[in-house]
């Protein structure tokens, strides 16, 4: 199968491509862009007039809810949502039921995902058995089964000795440890940022210090063990500042933020909007501005959807009892574009945060369109406005704080390895 995508505006941040170029695909790989290769006979010509063509998006956190939580979402529904959102590679955290702590579970998930023939799935293995924070998992076996790193997801790891040993062990094999920094004791019982809004609404707070205390511990252990750590979902300005200092010291650390945290803050909870019950909590406006700036200046490496589909029944509860999380796969692109526009950053910077940068976090040669690369491509109309109508989302999770909001930037076609896996009518 040979494909010629013509008249599109090509953005490949990694290779510094930003202009009107045709792109040529053969046998699932990028052949070249710009000039048509000699003797290239396309089986299909795709007219991308008015569209931006970029590497397929890479999402550093998407919960697919399988195995165990199929009532919330299934692989089928969420993989369809991913490609509808232009995402061709995604990382899923290990907090399934049972958690991804055994190679067999990981192999099954990889197999199920692959047989759907849509986005590529890279699971994170559980850092500790059953995510209980007591015994480390068979990390090397899990890596062989397909895990790209090891994580506690949102499960607490209270015992710092276990954390220390887990980081040492991971460092032995040069695995990356993915940690969402939150001190379990300081966060105990909390459901919202410990600030003005939680105080007004009478919600139990999670102080910003829960993040910085945990980061200080982790960074100390990074120095001690040499482990590579990826900080997931930073939520505070202080966290960004600590990350900046750690990077300046040359520590092997990276970080992401949720695309929700790039736009929303505690105020958006309004009168108990359970769609704004997220993990980590939406913090102050000042924190949000710090995250946005940190993403812009590269301190924060990438932005992710933090996709967490939740069924309606689990959201129609008083705020504290409502299941945290928001659907995000189909909103990652437009919300990232919105962030870049508001920050006066070029389109290529927005694209970089969801392609080349997360590829770099993962240590993958992906998220770019160099000749020979798998033809994972996203074609989108950067100007098209569309209204977020929950029922129209492909994801089984309809829960989003952006319900009813008009966003700009709509995916029109997604290719994985040269196959069209999504095409909007």
């Amino acid at each position, binding site marked *: 199968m040979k494909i010629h995508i013509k008249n599109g505006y090509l953005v490949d941040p990694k290779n510094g491509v930003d202009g009107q170029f045709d792109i040529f695909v053969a046998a699932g790989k990028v052949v070249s862009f710009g000039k048509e290769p000699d003797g290239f006979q396309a089986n299909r010509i795709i007219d991308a007039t008015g569209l931006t063509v970029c590497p397929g998006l890479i999402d550093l956190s998407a919960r697919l809810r399988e195995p165990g939580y199929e009532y919330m979402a299934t692989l089928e529904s969420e993989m369809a949502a991913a490609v509808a959102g232009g995402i061709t590679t995604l990382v899923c955290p290990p907090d399934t039921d049972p958690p991804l702590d055994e190679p067999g579970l990981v192999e099954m998930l990889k197999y199920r995902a692959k047989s759907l023939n849509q986005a590529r799935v890279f699971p994170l293995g559980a850092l500790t058995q059953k995510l209980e924070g007591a015994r480390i998992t068979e990390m090397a076996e899990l890596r062989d089964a397909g895990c790209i790193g090891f994580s506690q997801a949102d499960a607490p790891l209270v015992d710092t000795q276990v954390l220390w040993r887990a980081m040492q062990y991971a460092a032995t094999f040069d695995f990356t440890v993915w940690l969402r920094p939150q001190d379990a004791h300081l966060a105990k019982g909390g459901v919202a940022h410990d600030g*003005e809004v939680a105080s007004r*609404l009478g919600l139990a707070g999670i102080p910003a210090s829960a993040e910085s205390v945990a980061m200080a511990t982790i960074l100390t252990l990074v120095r001690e063990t040499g482990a590579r750590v990826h900080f997931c979902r930073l939520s505070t300005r202080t966290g960004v500042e600590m990350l900046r200092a750690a990077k300046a010291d040359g520590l092997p650390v990276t970080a992401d933020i949720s695309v929700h945290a790039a736009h929303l803050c505690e105020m958006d909870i309004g*009168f108990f909007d359970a769609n704004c019950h997220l993990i980590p909590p939406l913090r102050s406006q000042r924190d949000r501005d710090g995250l946005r700036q940190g993403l812009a200046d590269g301190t924060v490496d990438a932005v992710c959807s933090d996709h967490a589909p939740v069924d309606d029944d689990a959201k129609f509860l*008083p705020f504290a009892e409502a299941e945290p999380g928001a659907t995000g796969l189909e909103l990652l692109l437009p919300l990232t574009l919105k962030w870049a526009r508001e920050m006066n950053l070029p389109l290529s910077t927005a694209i970089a945060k969801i392609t080349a940068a997360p590829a770099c976090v993962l240590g993958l040669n992906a998220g770019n369109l160099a000749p020979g690369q798998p033809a994972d491509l996203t074609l989108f109309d950067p100007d098209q406005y569309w209204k977020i109508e929950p029922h129209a989302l492909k994801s089984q999770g309809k829960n989003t704080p952006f319900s009813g909001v008009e966003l700009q930037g709509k995916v029109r076609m997604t290719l994985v390895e040269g196959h069209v896996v999504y095409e909007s009518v």
Partner: protein
Amino acid sequence: MNNPQLNKNGEMQHLLTIEGLPRGMINHILDTAENFLNPVDREVKKVPLLRGKAIFNLFFEPSTRTRTTFEIAAKKLSADVINLNVGASSTSKGETLLDTVDNLTAMQADMFVVRHAQSGAAHLIARHVQPHIHVVNAGDGRHAHPTQGLLDMFTIRYFKKEFHNLRVAIVGDVLHSRVARSQICALTTLGVPEVRVIAPKTLLPAGIERMGVQVYHDMLQGLKDVDVVIMLRLQNERMRGALLPSAQEYFKYYGLTLDKLALAKPDAIVMHPGPMNRGVEIDSDVADGAQSVILAQVTFGIAVRMAVMSILAGSHAA
């Protein structure tokens, strides 16, 4: 952010919180309550305003006093009152909050009076019910207890006449108190120029000053020259964690005694939302003393709840 308790005409559809209620609306409730009260003997009149209406007291959390005063208020309005102690029945059988509400709606309810342990529960129910049903928040978690806040305003107005020249101190466990939050919203809306909160740092929520109050940690300074002292209930379980070391130390530094009350203005009144913990937050000499208006609060609570329910039902006398 639109206020979910007002309808399109700006009328009160539900009473969920005092936050965002216009001053005129609060005054209207207080004026209406006054009409239900005999000015001489403070007796509450019985009126036929809500005849034929069904009011469900929906208590997901145990309460005797609040439920009883709501029940009396509804009966004084000639409504039919159904008391449901839901905590002990359906939710323990796994029925969701909203399923319970749906079932009761099918039983021809006109109004729900809701008490729930979770902040925001009343908002959730109000968003969910059919448009002809009214919801009164009788206390949700730490968030709000608007009828208590209103009856406290009624009490202050009764004894002090005006709000614009007052200093009010709220003392105690503000962190866990829905009453304090409702009082602060009401006092600031009604134009009280100086609202103080007095508590150790462990019992104050983050950023409380953003609600328009002045924070004191020293009770002796905080009580100086105030017109109204509102004591908050301190639950015994607060002593079990890291919030407070002991009831004795708390009483020593934050309990109201006659000595400390002497720092307030000579005609200062002492209020307490009840139930009191004598010897923990308030000394019996004060609770039973000449400046205490604690029992008057209870009586006024009936009139204020009548006012709220009659205004919600759209058939108030005023």
